[in-house]
């Protein structure tokens, strides 16, 4: 049997799972309290970071960078340090951090407190996307208030000598703020324009101080991993992709949903969990990790397991675990046009290749779908994408180029047909 809801979703089926009483009655905050009661010092910090390293936890925000290693980059010393949570969930297809914020916010609060302690960061900010203002934000605000009222956050917590203050921040609508240095700029009250790296946030982060930015799911996984031990965590998933991840399965499936499952399950098993392709249709393609990852044809994805390595070997990436399922009959030119419109509109505008190139790609696709495209436009699209890739400050540029490249690589005949037939779609 495949274990489900083992980590971040462990209590979501309980009534009022977001309340501190519910969380505590399931053993919540015991890990944090145990750390505080054990005369916490630098040795404890090292142990926690070692545990996270051993668990093999990788950042769930999309890049998959090993979390323990990221934590170990923080300098020692007494200067003010920060832990920042990236709850700016906005990669198209992704909607699981929303569930954590809504249904298990205390796991995030506890995870941030532990992470903050491990890196000697006495202040934390949770950056929540602006659109969550009415739904998630009140929940996570209430969770922090409850935690303070129980004496689990603040100064000299439970007489341990440990201080940790945690605050929620609210964005205001900008995909680019999901990029960690764009997020820090936004948190400082500026436009969310990503910073040039190096220096990385561990050396120069929020207000110029050492900072670590982790994703919501990553941080919400911390309490369970420490409670049950890294061996338990690595007993799920594969050797290089251990543990669990929440897959957001959407698009052409019968039962779309968020599924917390071990990594490395076969794609077919995941598709089955989501009720299979709608209306008994055939699978055409899958975007496996959010719109920034490369699209894979049905025969390719069907051979994949859902982990970092398998999807990378197939030419794509696990990304955020946002699996967008596409059935036979879907026009890939129109779908790519929508994706390109998104990147055009969300480019922050500071690097010319991205600011100009995303507009070019969108406009070319628009004229193709309007029946005014030429054969030359197809090579022009690839040319523009190639000039954005690798030439910008942040990964947004690559993310705008990869869909164009992979859609053309896999479905060239659909683009060519449309150009030759005055905008008529081959798929429809």
């Amino acid at each position, binding site marked *: 049997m495949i274990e489900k809801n083992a980590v971040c979703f462990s209590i979501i089926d309980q009534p009022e799972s977001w309340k501190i009483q519910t969380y505590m009655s399931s053993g919540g905050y015991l890990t944090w309290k145990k750390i505080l009661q054990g005369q916490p010092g630098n040795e404890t910090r090292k142990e926690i970071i070692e545990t996270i390293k051993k668990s093999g936890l990788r950042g769930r925000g999309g890049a998959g960078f090993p979390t323990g290693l990221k934590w170990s980059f923080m300098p020692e010393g007494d200067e*003010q340090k920060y832990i920042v949570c990236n709850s700016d*969930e*906005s*990669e*198209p*297809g*992704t*909607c699981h*951090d*929303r569930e954590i914020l809504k249904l298990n916010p205390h796991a995030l609060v506890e995870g941030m407190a532990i992470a903050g302690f491990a890196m000697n960061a006495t202040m934390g*900010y949770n950056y929540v*996307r*602006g*659109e*969550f*203002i*009415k*739904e998630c934000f009140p929940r996570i605000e209430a969770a922090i208030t409850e935690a303070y009222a129980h004496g689990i956050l603040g100064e000299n917590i439970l007489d341990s000598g440990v201080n940790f203050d945690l*605050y929620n*921040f*609210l*964005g*205001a*609508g*900008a*995909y680019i703020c999901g990029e960690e240095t764009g997020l820090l700029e*936004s*948190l*400082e*009250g*500026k*436009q*969310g324009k990503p910073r040039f790296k190096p220096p990385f946030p561990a050396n120069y982060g929020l*207000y110029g101080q050492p900072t670590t930015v982790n994703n919501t799911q990553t941080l919400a996984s911390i309490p369970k991993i420490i409670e049950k031990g890294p061996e338990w965590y690595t007993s799920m998933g594969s050797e290089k992709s251990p543990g669990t991840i929440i897959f*957001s*399965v*959407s*698009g*052409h499936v019968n039962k*779309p*949903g*968020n599924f917390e499952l071990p990594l490395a399950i076969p794609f077919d098993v995941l598709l089955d969990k989501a009720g299979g392709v709608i209306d008994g249709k055939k699978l055409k393609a899958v*975007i496996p990790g959010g*719109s920034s990852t490369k699209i894979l044809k049905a025969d390719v994805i069907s051979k994949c397991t859902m982990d970092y390595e398998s999807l990378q070997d197939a030419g794509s990436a696990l990304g955020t675990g*946002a699996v*967008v399922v*596409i059935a036979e009959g*879907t026009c890939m030119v129109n*779908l790519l046009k*929508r*994706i390109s*419109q*998104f990147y055009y*509109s*969300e480019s922050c505008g500071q690097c010319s290749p991205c600011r100009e190139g995303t507009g070019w790609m969108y406009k070319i696709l628009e004229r193709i779908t309007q029946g005014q495209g030429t054969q030359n436009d197809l090579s022009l699209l690839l040319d523009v994408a190639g000039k954005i890739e690798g030439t910008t400050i942040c990964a947004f540029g690559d993310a705008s180029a990869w869909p164009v490249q992979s859609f053309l690589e896999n479905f060239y005949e659909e683009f060519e047909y449309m150009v030759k037939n005055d905008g008529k779609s081959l798929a429809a």
Partner: protein
Amino acid sequence: MKKTKPQELSEEVRKEINKWVAKFPEGKQRSAIIGSLHALQKANNGSLTTELMDTLADYLCLPKMYIYEMATFYSMFQTKAVGKNEISICTNISCMLSGSDKIVQHIENRLNIKLGESTKDGKFFLKKEEECLAACTGAPMMMVNHQYIENLTIEKVDEIIDQLERN
């Protein structure tokens, strides 16, 4: 630009701004701009004016440009007057695959406006939503005054608009 007179901030708005300022270290009140703009916009029927932004700049002791550049960068802030009820229909990939185009068309026809416009009676603002609203497993979906409404059908949309029209 026209010379403007700073407006008075209401007690409620001031309280909200102070709450945001208190979250950040001393001297870092620039971090409170987004939270403050949310509060100002809410109290001003869903949009911001230059006067309001100038008042905020004075209140936070920051250059006016710091406020303007935020209000124009972030898509949730409106710098022109808009209708009372804000509707944002998600049209990103998962919603598109689930038929969001039809939802957009239906609402445009029913309200007789295009995306980005407000109705003449000032009741509705149909925001042009470019981003994915992170409710992909409930596609198609929309936000009405920031409430998430998922698994939309034409009937469900009509019910919601009927209700808003009555209020």
